[in-house]
């Protein structure tokens, strides 16, 4: 069926298009370093999208829940077997992604006879010192990126860049309190989510993309009305990796009440 090379390239191209469509409805995930650790945030409807992987590693995912579960188990197995056989400090996000997860995702993506993983994954890794915090994002084709300070996953690379851009604009993020970090993350999430919605409408209208470039990013009012709309039927999900938490496990999912208290000041600013 794919005896001619260009057919294979075409099939992979079709796959890309199919996969890009699958993420349009998804909710972006934002992660950033703040004064006491790392915060992960997304907005979800029911199924959780943030998970604990190991003592210092948290995961945020987009895509099909069954695929995400499969890869989450892969990561958990890898991390725990490695942590037991060697030591917990040998379990690093970078090794798990480069030698564990990325090859598996890439292979599934390129085996055009089989179904690909419909997932984008973000790993946040708490360093022993703040400057060693690390973020990794993996795309559905197995490509991955490492970054410092913060990271995001969203439906397209361009939107992802916009979200990260909005995080970078916040100076002093490294010294931010948890509540400031949550506020920044929520707004960055809204920028991504709003851009995805605009892109989707454009796609449906079969127009050329009219998505505003980052120079004319959406104004504060547009973001706030988008937040008000989405929070009416969805809930904010937050987790932290806290450097000073007692014991070896640093990951903690925040309870709904705590999230409300943290974001109360910023949610109150949104006009009803």
């Amino acid at each position, binding site marked *: 069926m794919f005896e001619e090379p260009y057919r294979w390239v075409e099939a992979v191209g079709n796959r890309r298009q199919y996969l890009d469509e699958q993420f349009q409805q998804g909710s972006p995930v934002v992660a950033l370093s703040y004064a006491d650790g790392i915060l992960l945030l997304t907005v979800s409807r029911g199924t959780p999208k943030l998970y604990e992987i190991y003592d210092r590693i948290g995961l945020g995912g987009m895509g099909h829940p069954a695929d995400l579960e499969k890869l989450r*188990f892969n990561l958990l197995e890898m991390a*725990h077997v490695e942590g037991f056989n060697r030591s917990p400090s040998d379990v690093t996000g970078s090794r798990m992604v480069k030698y564990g997860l990325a090859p598996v995702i890439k292979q599934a993506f390129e085996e055009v006879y089989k179904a690909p993983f419909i997932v984008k994954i973000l790993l946040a890794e708490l360093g022993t010192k703040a400057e060693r915090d690390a973020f990794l994002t993996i795309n559905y084709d197995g490509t991955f990126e490492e970054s410092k300070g913060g990271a995001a996953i969203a439906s397209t690379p361009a939107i992802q860049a916009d979200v990260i851009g909005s995080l970078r604009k916040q100076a002093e993020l490294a010294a931010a309190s948890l509540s400031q970090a949550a506020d920044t993350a929520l707004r960055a999430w809204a920028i991504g989510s709003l851009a995805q919605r605009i892109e989707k409408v454009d796609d449906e209208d079969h127009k050329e993309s009219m998505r505003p470039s980052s120079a004319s990013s959406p104004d504060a009012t547009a973001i706030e009305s988008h937040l008000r709309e989405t929070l009416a039927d969805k809930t904010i999900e937050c987790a932290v990796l806290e450097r000073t938490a007692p014991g070896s496990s640093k990951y903690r999912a925040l309870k709904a009440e705590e999230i409300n208290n943290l974001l109360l000041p910023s949610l109150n600013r949104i006009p009803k």
Partner: protein
Amino acid sequence: MGMEGDFLQLLKERGYQFSAPASGLEAQPAEAAEITKGTTILAMKYRDGVLVAGDRRATAGNMVMYDRTDKVLEIDRHSVMAIAGVPATAYEMVRILEHSFKYYRRTQLQELSFEGKLRAVAKLLKDNVAAALAGTGAVVPVFAGYDFEQGAAKIYFYDILGAEFEGVEYAVSGSGSPTIRGILHYLNTWSDRPLSALPEEDAIVQALRLLTSAAEFDSATGGVNRDLNLYPIVKLITEAGIQTTPANRLQSLFEAKVARHV
């Protein structure tokens, strides 16, 4: 896929084998092997939860191997295993349990129940029977933790075959334990109040006195070494988690309420 969240099973699938007695050692009597062993541990209820304490000596036959052993090991935020017996096996058990409880929580997205944790300990001991009988790996642990379903801190002790018993008021293990078992029974029955009514400080003082008594009659128990500022390990388990009593607090309590009596 590990849908059962069973870490030991996962390890076995990857070729790991817990506790295999070397065939050459099977014929040897335990005494001849002169393997390193741990010594006196105790757990008792007190007003706010459970106190777990252990001396710090490890011996091999007549030789003192080490005087800074930690035999009271935290497995997660709410459970502790105190170990008596062969440390090599005991530490391996603790490592397996630690990873098992974390793996269960992270895969199943809920804490393993207290009962589940007790079973996990029993299962490891059962896997270890051959080594225990060969004399190379006997471990007799005391497991204590906070049971959120029952809303109470609890104590369990085991025999080397993995049978599990609840220590309603207290539990002891190790070569120095016969000495203090009697004292605990006496204290609990005929003092003005039972152990479970003791405030934190009194409970710590009793633990120090008990371990000092064990060291008095058992050469394999370390007791307190004031010259080296070496005190037993004392951990307190309450609903809030595990708290390790700092050495300076043990020191001042020892000076004030234990030392003058010895």
